């Protein structure tokens, strides 16, 4: 029997009926149930652990400062139903009064909530009681106390300068610390894993990151208009930016009740898949490079170039396509471009097949990936991992199938799932997905309907909220939007897939060697810039000198002059 949203509501009503204060449906497949503070964490855990929902997933936790509207703070735990068991998103919401900002932590029973609760503690000051990790996550450890950047009274321009300092776990007896980052040949972005090592074997690992906050959410709430945000959303990530702008636009469209024209939905689908091919090929290349197999690296990126070229022809840009606006897309895919795209894809297919054959016949590469960094199914569920990381561990979840968006409901494709949970399984998921992506693009181009590109925005009703989601190359990407007044969003919460996958990496590292570490970390295809998007502070230097734009321009011109 399918898990319809009504069925889930019935189950919750039966168990927590007396605690429910309010209930509303922002969308047909979304419900927000407002509960007592004491019951909300329990209801979330019930949904995740006991309700018997197929592949339940703690998709995001949104904390909002709703004092200007209701005089209180709010938290919504969003749990999704997956594995094609039904299209339902259940938001368990609770209000907290300013005098009593405490809520029972769910991390001890569901480790996947670890980061969400720490982030809310850092940015809003809502304290998860009994949380196992007292350290800060997003803010530096010496950020001034009692200043919470996501509260509405905090001005987005204020920058309390601090000297960065990060507190790490104590190493176990007899272990040596191997610092992996913030700068390392295998780091494509600054992040810091601490490996506690005996000989070459990793006994324990710790992660401290968030070196790159750009404060995008705060920036959006404070000074950007609805239609400016897609462009900054696209810049959340340099590799999978389009999924962010799509998810944001869909969230706003959902909240405003806009029906996106069919053609626009298809164009979005095509670009999302072009982006997925590009991202997966990039990843395969990097994995080869980390294993010392540079020929694979070069060829993967050479083939990827075809895809980038196609993106440029279709949108004008190799990356950050700048295509999405609320209500649809800005550019059309013209009729004569279709054959161009199909030809490029057939060339890509041929070269990709040769490449995959070469890769699978390189025994030393397979040997490096096989049986390394195993993430068993139960751990993958406990950490709410998503995307290829989850599918490599046997979780049958894919937003495109489970909660169809854009045009995915009308297209045919398979979701590759592997059960081994090692680096090779995650690689195989990605390799197979490229084939599916090509197939999706071919279908979408074939079926591309006519009609307008963009729907009109009629009325913006403030404080309506909605969730939106899409399947990024790295997994489920969830955006939550609460509309605001004055052409601005009230709250925009981004949850990129790496946010869910990264906390599981220390689990994957334990028991393997330093030689495996770069490959294991890379195997989730981490995207740190996606994960770290929350705050405007110069964490790098903490220096007090502030350059004006003019000084800054002058410096950069002087530097580049010869």
């Amino acid at each position: 029997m399918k898990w319809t949203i009504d069925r889930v509501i019935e189950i919750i009503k039966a168990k927590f009926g007396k605690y429910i204060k309010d209930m509303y449906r922002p969308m047909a497949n979304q419900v927000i149930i407002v509960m007592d503070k004491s019951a909300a964490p329990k209801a979330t855990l019930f949904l995740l652990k006991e309700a018997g929902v197929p592949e339940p997933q703690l998709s995001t936790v949104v904390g909002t400062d709703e004092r200007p509207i209701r005089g209180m703070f709010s938290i919504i735990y969003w749990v999704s139903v997956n594995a094609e068991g039904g299209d339902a998103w259940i938001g368990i919401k609770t209000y907290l009064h300013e005098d009593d900002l405490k809520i029972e932590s769910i991390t001890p029973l569901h480790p996947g909530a670890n980061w969400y609760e720490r982030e809310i503690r850092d940015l809003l000051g809502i304290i998860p009681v009994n949380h196992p990790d007292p350290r800060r996550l997003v803010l530096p450890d010496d950020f001034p106390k009692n200043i919470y950047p996501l509260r509405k009274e905090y001005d987005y321009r204020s920058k309390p300068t601090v000297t960065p300092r990060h507190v790490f776990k104590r190493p176990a007896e007899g272990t040596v610390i191997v610092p992996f980052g913030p700068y390392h040949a295998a780091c494509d972005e600054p992040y810091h894993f601490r490996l506690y090592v005996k000989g070459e074997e990793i006994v324990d690992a710790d992660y401290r990151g968030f070196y790159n906050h750009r404060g995008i959410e705060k920036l959006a709430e404070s000074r950007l208009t609805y239609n400016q945000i897609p462009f900054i959303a696209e810049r959340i990530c340099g590799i999978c930016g389009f999924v962010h702008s799509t998810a944001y636009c869909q969230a706003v469209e959902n909240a405003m009740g806009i029906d996106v024209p069919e053609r626009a939905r298809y164009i979005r689908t095509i670009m999302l898949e072009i982006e997925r091919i590009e991202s997966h090929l990039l990843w395969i290349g990097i994995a080869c490079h980390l294993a010392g197999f540079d020929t694979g690296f070069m060829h993967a990126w050479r083939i990827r170039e075809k895809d980038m070229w196609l993106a440029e022809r279709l949108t004008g840009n190799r990356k950050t396509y700048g295509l999405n606006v609320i209500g649809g897309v800005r550019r059309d895919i013209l009729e004569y471009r279709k054959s161009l795209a199909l030809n490029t894809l057939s060339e890509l297919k041929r070269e990709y097949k040769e490449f995959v054959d070469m890769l699978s016949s390189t025994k030393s590469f397979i040997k490096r990936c096989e049986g390394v960094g195993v993430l068993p199914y139960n751990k993958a569920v406990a950490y709410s991992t998503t995307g290829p990381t989850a599918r490599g561990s046997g979780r049958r979840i894919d937003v495109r199938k489970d909660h169809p968006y854009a045009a995915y409901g009308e297209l045919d494709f398979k979701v590759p799932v592997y059960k081994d949970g090692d680096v090779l399984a995650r690689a195989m998921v990605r390799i197979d997905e490229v084939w599916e992506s090509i197939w999706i693009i071919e279908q979408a181009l074939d079926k591309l309907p006519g009609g307008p590109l963009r729907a009109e925005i009629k009325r913006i009703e403030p404080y309506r909220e909605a969730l939106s989601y899409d399947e990024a190359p790295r997994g489920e990407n969830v955006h939550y939007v609460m509309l605001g007044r004055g052409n601005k969003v009230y709250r925009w919460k981004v949850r990129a897939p790496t946010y869910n996958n990264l906390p599981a990496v220390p689990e994957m590292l334990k028991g393997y060697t330093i030689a495996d570490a770069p490959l294991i970390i890379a195997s989730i295809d981490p995207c740190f810039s996606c994960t770290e998007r929350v705050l405007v502070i110069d964490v790098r230097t903490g220096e007090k000198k502030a350059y004006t734009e003019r000084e800054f321009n002058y410096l950069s011109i002087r530097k580049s002059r010869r």
Partner: protein
Amino acid sequence: MIMRLVSLCVAIVIALVFPLIFDGIGRKIKARIQYRMGPPIFQTIYDVSKLLKTPYLVSGGLMFILAPCIAFASALASITMLPVGGISPISFSYDIFVFLYVEAMVSISLMLAGFSVQNIYANAGANRETMLILSTEPILGVALAMLALLTKRLSIEGIAYTIGVIDYRLLPLVLIAYMMLVYIVYIEGGFIPFDLTEAETEILGGPLCEYSGRLLALFKWALLIKRFTLIWLLASLITIPSVAPAFSRINTVFSYILVLLFQLFIALVLYCSIVANEAFTARYKIDHVISLNKRVFLVSIIFFIVIAVLTL
């Protein structure tokens, strides 16, 4: 005597220049396999000469500075024991043992360099190098011992010349010893998949990660010379038995030059094929290499016993 002196000069010139050129050729070949333009053939020479002009930072004790010098000297010394143009510059009976030691000194100084600094990556690299030479040197020893037993000679020059006139029934055994040598040359040369001492994407260059400027240049150069020496050993053992007796009937100088050119040619062919193979492999982990070495060592010991029984 004069020929040996000339040979010494030639050996040193070859050892200084050709490893760099070979590396450049190797880079070009790999680039072509990867559909890239690749750097110019002399790029490694430019790199080393630029590094030689740059100052260096000292991050360890005296050993930190001595290690690259010892490595460089040992690498140069080891090639002088090999036949160059059919004549070994330094040759005496039992020089086979000296060659083994001198050759190992390069690895040992790399280890010492790694342990002389307080850097976890350098230490990890040194650890790997230790495990690597402890598991590979015995195989090199057994392979050379097999050849020594077959030819009843203990100098490399002697071995090379005697193989040319060996009883043809023993040739399969000679071939097996050669195959062992190829395996060793590949590992000791630090070619992928055995480049785990440096392994830049894992441990940032291992023992080399604290080195800079002149000292780094010296170390890199020494490692390239070592690589070249090992290939030269193989090239000599192929060239001299096959062509040297024929050429020696002609004028000495002429034959010297011809044999030298042949050696260079064979070395280049060997180098290129190794590099091409390198382009299609990923790096092994240390436990892969150790288990592989164990198996090869076991096989080599069995063949050694067979040879010992047959020849003694």
